[in-house]
Structure formats: structure tokens, C-alpha cells
């Protein structure tokens, strides 16, 4: 290799590092905001410590998993409004299957529920691809279907959970500052998302969200990729449902606020709603931020109704400031 090409390669690498920092600037900014919030929390509630972090980790787990699933679908150019209902359905199914059963049976239940999640997601995606009805309509309709199914399984909150599943997300691992729930979350994302991001399938998901025609012309199977993106979302919804069962010990047939909260986290996390841009890490940080804001409101004794308003204002504010910064940078 000549000196010139070596220099060119070095320059290209330097450029890549620079552009990588630029691409992740949003996530870095969110991390800064999170650090600020943690300091703020400690200031207004000096007793905030190990228990607070433990509680935070458990309470963010279901929404964090939902947000990762939602992020994958949004990156592929879609959106799923049935994610909350899916979580309720998978949660009640797991709770009713596990109730009164031996501990080992829990393993089978987990496998069954995860496969079911993949199937539910694939059904959503398949309907979007086959009917060509917009994602938002299909998944809104399916949210009623999944919510109805959940009520058919369990009319009222009930069921049970294997003990080991509950223990999987409560308490800490080794150091008391490392909550098990956070470890589970990091492991799940590391095992599923990280390899996906570096795989051909991951690139295909970004490609169909960025420019369907270009992806099609480049030989990417748009429909198949879309179904897989939805199936992955279903998998994360099932993980979210299992985490609900694990953290409460029962299954609740009424969907929580996870659908819209997951969309909010994805937007705050820097994923472009038009598809093709962003990643799941920003969404994960956003989930923690949203939860921490809620905690701080409680500490500050803010009226709960007002707290919801404040949360909305902060969401819009952060996204707006971020857009302004990006526009500035584009102009500069």
C-alpha cells in the first residue's frame, strides 16, 4: 500500500469517527440531560439512592422493552399502535399459564410467549404488507383485537408467576448499585439489537425506512423485511409483557399507557418518525428520562394532573430544542 492511500484511509477513518460523533450527538445530549436530572433528583431528595435506582430500573423495564420494539418498527418506516395491547395479551397468557404450575414449567411458558410475540408482530406486519392499508390504521385496529383477546384470557387481573422470573428482575446483582432489571434489559438489547445492527437484515430495515424504492431496486425484499421488523417488535412486546408479569406477579388484561409512551420515547430518543434514522439507545435513555421526570414530580409534590402536563411540555420542549440545534448545525 502506498503512503498516499494509507493517508487517505486514515483521513477516511478520522472522518468516520467525526461523523459517528455527529450521528450520535442526540444520544450524547440525552445522556447529558439524564445526568442533569439525576443530580437534580439528588438535590431535591437527598435520600435518593440505592432504593431509588432499584425502583427506577424495575419501573422502566416494561416501557424500555416496548420502546426498543417500537424503535425497530419506526426505523423501518412504520409505526405500531397495538404494542400496549400486545403486552397485556402476552402478560395475561404468561400469568394464567404459570399459575399453580411448577417452577420449571416457567421456562416453557417464556419460550411459548416469546414465540407468540413473534407471531403477533408478524401478523401485524403481514397485514400491513398484504392489505397495503397504512400501518397506523392496521395496528390501531389490531390493538382492539389483541386487547379483546387479553380480556378473553383473563377477565380481571390474576394468574401468577414463577418465582425465578420474579427474582430475575428484583434485587441487585453483586453490587447493590446494579439492579438486576437493568442487567436483564442491557443483556436483552445486547443479544438482539447489537448483532442486528451489524447484520444485513439490520441494514435492510434501515434501507426500507429510508427509501423503499431504492431498497427495492437494490434487491432488498421490502415486504419480507417489513414483516420481520414487526415480528421483532412483537418479540420485544412479549418481553415487555413478561416483565409486567414478573414485576407485579400477576397478569393485567387492561393495556397500560405503553403504546403512546413508547412512541414518545422513540421520538425523544432521536428516531425519525419518517423512518430510516436513529437507533434504540437514544430511545432507552429517553425512557429513563421520562420515568425520572415522573419521579421528580412526585418528590416535588406536584399535583398528578399537572405532572402529566409538565411531562408533555418537557417532551415537546426537548424535541424542539433538538430540532433547532440540528437546523443550526445544518446551516452553520
Amino acid at each position, binding site marked *: 500500500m502506498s503512503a498516499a492511500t494509507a493517508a487517505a*484511509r486514515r483521513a*477516511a477513518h478520522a472522518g468516520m469517527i467525526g461523523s459517528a460523533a455527529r450521528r450520535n450527538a442526540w444520544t450524547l445530549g440525552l445522556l447529558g440531560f439524564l445526568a442533569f436530572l439525576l443530580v437534580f433528583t439528588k438535590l431535591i431528595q437527598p435520600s435518593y439512592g440505592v432504593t431509588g435506582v432499584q425502583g427506577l430500573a424495575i419501573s422502566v423495564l416494561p416501557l424500555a422493552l416496548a420502546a426498543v420494539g417500537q424503535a425497530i418498527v419506526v426505523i423501518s418506516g412504520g409505526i405500531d399502535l397495538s404494542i400496549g395491547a400486545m403486552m397485556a395479551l402476552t402478560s395475561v397468557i404468561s400469568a394464567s399459564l404459570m399459575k399453580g404450575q411448577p417452577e420449571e414449567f416457567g421456562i416453557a411458558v417464556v419460550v411459548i410467549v416469546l414465540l407468540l410475540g413473534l407471531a403477533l408482530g408478524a401478523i401485524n406486519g403481514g397485514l400491513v404488507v398484504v392489505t397495503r392499508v397504512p400501518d397506523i390504521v392496521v395496528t390501531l385496529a389490531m390493538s382492539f383485537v389483541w386487547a379483546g383477546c387479553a380480556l378473553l384470557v383473563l377477565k380481571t387481573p390474576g394468574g401468577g408467576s414463577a418465582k425465578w422470573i420474579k427474582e430475575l428482575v428484583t434485587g441487585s446483582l453483586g453490587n447493590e448499585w446494579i439492579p438486576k432489571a437493568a442487567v436483564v434489559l442491557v443483556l436483552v438489547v445486547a443479544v438482539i439489537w447489537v448483532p442486528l445492527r451489524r447484520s444485513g437484515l439490520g*441494514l435492510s430495515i434501515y*434501507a426500507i425506512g429510508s427509501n423503499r424504492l431504492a431498497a427495492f*431496486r*437494490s*434487491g432488498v425484499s421490502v415486504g419480507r423485511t417489513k414483516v420481520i421488523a414487526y415480528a421483532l417488535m412483537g418479540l420485544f412486546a412479549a418481553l415487555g409483557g413478561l416483565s409486567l408479569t414478573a414485576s407485579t406477579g400477576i397478569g393485567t388484561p387492561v393495556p397500560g399507557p405503553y403504546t403512546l409512551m413508547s412512541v414518545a420515547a422513540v421520538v425523544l430518543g432521536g428516531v425519525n418518525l419518517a423512518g430510516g434514522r436513529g437507533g434504540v439507545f437514544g430511545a432507552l435513555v429517553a425512557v429513563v428520562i421520562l420515568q425520572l421526570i415522573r419521579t421528580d414530580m412526585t418528590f416535588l409534590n406536584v399535583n398528578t394532573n399537572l405532572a402529566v402536563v409538565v411531562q408533555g411540555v418537557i417532551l415537546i420542549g426537548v424535541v424542539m430544542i433538538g430540532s433547532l440545534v440540528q437546523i443550526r448545525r445544518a446551516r*452553520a
Partner: protein
Amino acid sequence: MTATRTDLLLEATGISKTYGAVVALKSASLAVRPGEVHALMGANGAGKSTLVKILTGAVRPDSGTIAVRGRERTVHSPGEARRGGLVSVYQEPALIPDLDIRSNLRLTETPLEPFRHWLGELGLEGLDLSSLARSMPLASLRIIDLARALAIEPDVLMLDEMTAALPANLTERVLEVVGRQRGGHRAVIFISHRLIEIAAVCDRATVLREGETVGVVDVTDGSEERIVELMLGEVVRDVPAAAERAAAGARVLGARPRLTVRGLAAGTKLQDVSFELYPGEVLGVVALEGQGQDELFDILAGSDRPSGGELLVDGAPVSFHHPADAIRAGLVYVPADRAEALLMQRSVRENIALPFITRLRDWGPINPGDERRKVEGGIARLQIDTRAQGEVRRLSGGNQQKVTIARWVAGGVKTMLCFDPTRGIDIRTKQQIYVLLRDLAEAGAAVLLYTSELKEVQLVCERAIVIFGGRVVAEIGVADADETALLRAAYNLRSDAPMPEHVAAEAVAEGPAEGSAEAVASSGTEPEADR
């Protein structure tokens, strides 16, 4: 220069603009006198588009002043520029696709009578104003855009690559109308990569290179040389002479064809097309707008399915259900419109790597070393400017087109289908693409090249087929493929008969009535096709 400052209709001085690390304009200036047609020239990436956007208020400059009739002003939006008498016609049609023409006119408050008048002048008198913009051919949309701009009677009319997608007959009308604007109190800023057009209608030319105005040239006989010299800055390698290629063409004809097309038909546009494409040759395809060439390429690229005929690759019959099938068979497609090929928000790397994953087994982990080697190979081979590689949309048009070609070259190319790959691209990049196509052919690849610029046939092809009304009407060797011969063949005329006036007139009238080649092509290539 005798004109004083106040004599100038429009004057821009010291304009600069940077986008992050990329300097789009360093110090550009432009002075337009009333009554002149002023050419704005420059290689892609020279800063032409940015200057145009600044003049029309779409982008704000970092520094510099713009004066209209001697008075300095800041333009904040295209609407404001329009009210100030500055109207531009962009490369992309600016009509709302889902509205009919009449509603589109109302949207911009265009007076109807002058619009009809200019439409007539431009050769589209029979236009139905209640038809949807979506259903019109691209060429007609551009003519409508121009007529709309003329109807407003702007002081300064800016035409960005107005003739790029037009067939020869409409181009002639446009040039005639533009030429008639000379001598009045208005002015036209004319942007085109075609020097012949510049020579035909322009009075002066301002040449940009790398973000700077490097010269203002009076357009006279022989000034083309000077303009090219200014634009290029440095000499580029020439493509091999046509005569050499004619001999080479004879050599490869004995081999087995890489691609055989027999009696191919699709819908009403493509009737019966047959030809053979040999390894080691560049085969030109020449046709007027909407003669079935779009359908032909869509079928070969696997985006569309034929209604009849057969395709053979290396002698074996094939049928493509998805572009992935065509890519596996070695047939790769480079469209004219970069927006149809690139992931604009993604990086150069991802764009080049995208087609490596067309097989299901490629969905697994990417081998980073292998990918980087291929991507860097592609970047080096096409000399892509990687300063803004984080997002492809920040590259210049020429560099974007290089990325669409690099993605195929990086993986090793057997058969390349190029549909007007140099449309709207500067001379320097064009030359690089010509050299690359020749190199690919010499390395044994087969290249099918549709071109709307007839002189490209002699520059890069061994031979050319001419399609008219969905059939191959002529095959011309490179030695005889001068622009006149090709144009006659494209109109389906015998080479010895003079071209009758009414044929040109008919071709114009047929344009909109026949429906849109572009519309058919784009509806046929929707990704939904692959369930």
C-alpha cells in the same frame, strides 16, 4: 465592462456558504444585465445549485450581498423572491401531483390567458387543464412549469437544467422561447450542461469552479473551449477513440451473448424488442421520450414483468420476479434519478453495502473487513469525494451518482444497465463515468446504456439500437452513429430522406396524449410489487 452598478438587473457579490465542513460557495458573484440570457456554468459541486437557492431565497448565505436594480435586498423565501420579480424553474417539477393543472395554477396565482399563450408557444397548446399533474409525462410537467413562470412575467427568470429531461423537439421550442427573451428589459439565467444550448441562446456565461466565480465569458463562436477550460480547471483523460472501439466491437461479436432479449413486450408501450448484448461492449439505446425504453429497463432490472417475449442470460432463459433475481443473475441497474437509488439519509458506506445483502443468507452478520474492503474499493474506483460521507444527501449530484455506480462496481459487475446515468451531471463527472464504462467493458462486463444525450453514443458505445414505438427500428455501428443519424433513426426516418416538419409537430402533440412513460414506469416499480 461598460455597465455601471445601477444598469445591472441583478447583482450578487461575494456570496459564501458552508454546510458544516463542506464549503459550498467560497466567493461567488453574478451580474446580470437587462435583456440578456446569462448562462451559469460549473461542474457539479461547483456551487451552482447553492447559488441558485440563495438567489431565490431558499437558502440564506453566510456572507455577500444581492442587489436587484441597484438596490440591496435580502430575500427570505421563494415566495418573496417571486414577488420581487425573481422566478425560477427547478430541475424537479414543482407541481402538486394530486392537484389538476388548473388548481396548481391557482395555487401560484398564475394568470390563465398568458399561461395558455406560453403553452402554445412551447408546443403544448392542446393541454387539458383538468388533468392531474400526476398523470402527465415529465417533459410536459417541465413545459408547464416554464409556461407558468413565463406567465408571471418575471424580471429575472432562472432556468435550472430546463432541457435535461426534454426530448429534442421540445428542447428546440424551449430554446426558441428563451432566445426571444433577449433584448427586452428582462433577463434569463440559464443553467445547462449542454454547451450547444449555451452557444445557441446565451449572451454571456458566468463560470463557477469549487465555489468561486472563475470567469465571465462573452458567448461567441469558439467560446465553448474557454468555458470548458474554466469549468474543468484541469485536463481529464480522454476516452478511447471511436475507431478503436469499432474494431473491438467486431472482435466481441463472435462470442456468446451475455444477454439475449427476444420479442420482449409489456403493455402498450413495449411492443417487440429484440437484441443481444455481448460481454466487453457498451451497447447504446436511443429513443425519444416514452418509446418503451423505461419499460425495457424496468423489466431487465427485475422491477417489472413482461407480458411476452423471453430473456436469456448467458444462453439460459431467466424470469425475474424481484430486482434481487436480476441482481443475482448479474444484471444491475443505475437509474437516472439518484433519489430512486439512494438512501439519502444514510452514509456512503451503507449505500454502497446495501446490495451485498440481497440473499437471505446475507441477512446474517456483516463481515466488517470484507465490507470495508469492497466499500473502499468502490470509493477509490469512482473517486468519490468523501468529505460529507455521513449522509449521502449532502453530497453533490455528481458524487451521488458515483455512489449509485460504486455500489455495483464494488461487488464486481457483470452486466450494468444504465438509464441516462449522466443526466444533470457536470462534464468532469461525465468524463469519469465514460472512462469507467469503457474500463468495465474492457474488463469483460456488458453495459447497456440508454442516453438522452446523443453524442454519448459515439463517446462510449460500440453500437447502438434505436427504439421507436416499442420496437427496435435500427442498429447503428459507432462509426455511423453521429447525432444526425441517431436523431433521424429515433424519429424512425430513413437516413436519406429529409426530416419533414409535420413529424416533429406530431411528436410534440403525441407527448401528453400518450400518457406518461415516467408515470407508467414509476407505478410499475412500486416496491409493493414484491409480496
